[in-house]
């Protein structure tokens, strides 16, 4: 949230420009657009992870489980609204999307409240036990989703009016990606606005700096943090729901697979920083798309290589949270 200099922010435009000479303009446009859209989706999922770490010093290895649950819930809602999904109008499709995302946010937010109370509350301040407990919770959650939704992958039909693409200067941009990107961007701006400009944001930031002092002034920091935890898991749920529609298929392994990607994003961005995660998510999205196009065999290594490069340059990530 606090920046030392502007260099990290330039990383995204530099990457965009650097990729241009390597491919045709139309390909570049398509890949950049889908990379940025994927980045915004990743941010939606990673924002909760970094928020919870920044405010509560809890590294939640089970964060991916909320993404997974969000995706499964969206798939269930999707399957019950075939009329809205198949309807040709944009409004009906968006309504289905809102229903799926809303259900995922509600359920994951509620699960987050329970999870904080039952699991996390006992291990505040003890990182080793936090990691162990949340890893255990992740395994249980993944297995439970198999018990509830069965071992087979669920498929989601593409919403009729969002499946097609815009053609701009020869490059194709799928409409659904625009919606996903818009949602991610909106979440980023809203989080920044709330944290920087509102009274709640002020108290949250003050609570991070000096919890006892803020409590002495009469604010219930505990309750506020629980609220933040629920917001974080709800965002993960929405991210999972959007990912489910975006990918068109949901498996029980989704949460675990995305956890790795989300960790890459928040480590690149700087653990605890919302803006940093946003930059990290965009970089990961772009690199994944570019490398996947230019050298598919290297696609696996690209994210880890990016992370290693960033950590060599800035050991704490792009925009680290300064903790006193």
């Amino acid at each position, binding site marked *: 949230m606090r920046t030392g200099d502007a260099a990290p922010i330039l990383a995204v435009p530099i990457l965009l420009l650097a990729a241009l000479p390597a491919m045709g303009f139309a390909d570049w446009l398509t890949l950049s657009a889908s990379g940025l859209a994927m980045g915004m989706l990743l941010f939606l999922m990673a924002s909760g992870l970094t928020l919870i770490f920044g405010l509560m010093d809890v*590294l939640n*290895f089970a964060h991916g489980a909320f993404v997974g649950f969000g995706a499964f819930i969206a798939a269930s809602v999707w399957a019950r609204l075939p009329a809205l999904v198949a309807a040709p109008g944009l409004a009906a499709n968006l309504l289905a999307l809102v229903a799926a995302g809303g259900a995922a946010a509600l359920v994951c937010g509620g699960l987050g409240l329970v999870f904080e109370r039952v*699991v996390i509350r*006992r291990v505040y301040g003890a*990182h*080793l*036990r936090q*990691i*162990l*407990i949340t*890893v*255990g*919770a992740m*395994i*249980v959650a993944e*297995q*439970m989703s*198999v*018990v509830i939704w069965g*071992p087979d992958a669920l498929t989601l039909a593409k919403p009729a009016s969002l499946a097609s693409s815009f053609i701009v200067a020869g490059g194709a941009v799928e409409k659904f990606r625009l919606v996903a990107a818009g949602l991610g961007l909106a979440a980023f701006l809203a989080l920044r606005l709330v944290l920087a400009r509102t009274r709640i944001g002020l108290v949250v930031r003050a609570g991070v700096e000096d919890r006892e002092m803020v409590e002495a002034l009469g604010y219930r920091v505990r309750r506020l943090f629980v609220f933040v935890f629920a917001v974080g898991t709800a965002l993960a749920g929405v991210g999972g729901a959007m990912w489910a529609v975006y990918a068109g298929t949901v498996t029980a392994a989704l949460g*675990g697979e995305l*956890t*790795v990607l989300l*960790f*890459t994003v*928040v*480590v690149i961005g700087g*653990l605890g920083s919302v803006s940093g995660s946003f930059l990290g998510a965009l970089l990961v999205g772009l690199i994944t798309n570019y490398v996947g196009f230019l050298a598919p065999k290297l696609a*696996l*290594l690209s*994210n*880890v290589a990016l*992370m*290693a490069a960033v*950590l*060599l340059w800035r*050991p*704490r990530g792009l925009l680290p949270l300064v903790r006193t």
Partner: protein
Amino acid sequence: MSPASPGRAGRVLLGLLLAILLGALAFAPFLFPGTRAMATASRIAIFIVLAASYDVLLGYAGIVSFAHTMFFGIGAYGVAIALARLTPGWGALALGAAAGIGLSMLLAALIALLSLRVRAIFFSMLSLAVASVALTLASQLRDLTGGEDGLTFPVPAALSPGFRLLDHPVLGVRVDGRLLTYYLIFLVALGLFLFLLRVVNAPFGRVLQAIRENEFRAEALGYRVVLYRSLASALAAGVAACAGVLMGLLLRYNGPATTMSFAIMVDLLLMVVIGGMGTLYGAALGAALMVLAQYYLETLLQALAGAAAGLPPLAALFDPDRWLLWLGLIFVLIVYFFPAGIAGSLRLRAGEE
């Protein structure tokens, strides 16, 4: 962590358990005849080494690595690739083992140096990312690793099942390649375990514990925290790769699922946590317990699923494929209510008397 003066009863019980374990492993081929029993005993010996090396990280250095099975896998792939591609023999075996162990230690040091400069938490995240890439690479680089199918390879003649050292059985057991393999695994495992025990009880291990308890104080006393933790990480990775080499020799096969999968990582966490973090003996007990339990848990779940067949939701929970669910639950409960594990609790209870 440990009480000032551990009493007698718990210590004696712990010693007794360990003595039984050592005795059972030392004479396993004679006590429990049969190929399957010998394979189980070999697995226990290998996993004791793997769990003990993981405990050096988790219990002594206080850092959580998710790449430990990656090093286990690299060791196994080292011998697998060398023995499958070169002329099989002791030379290829040594070359493959050395390459696997060297690569593991180098990778571990790199991950540690990149991440531990900041916070120990970074190490956990980075190790998870690297391990997931390694697992995908292992299953995709078909030409090198055999992909998902893995590699089957010949071992040196003296270790292959057809080899006979003596014509007559000793105490009713044939002295063949299987027996030689078992004792090779047992002796190397014992040596590695004793080596780790020596390391953690040397000043090096004490410094690791000091860093775990209070990083800033250790740094202020002049110990270079990053260096010590990186060394511990490289050491643990090297020993894990050795365990992988032994696993390769035992199975004469290696694939991504046998040595590198995330399920084995979970098993490993369970072994160390159940046995007791920060006591290598605990890791040994945990490893033995888990390997044995794996043979019975599925049978138990099958029985429960049969009993619950009338109630569909319950039957889904007790499905034999859901063993990971129950292991995960047990794991969480142990971390909450039983954090010292078996070895730690025995010592603790003794201390209270």
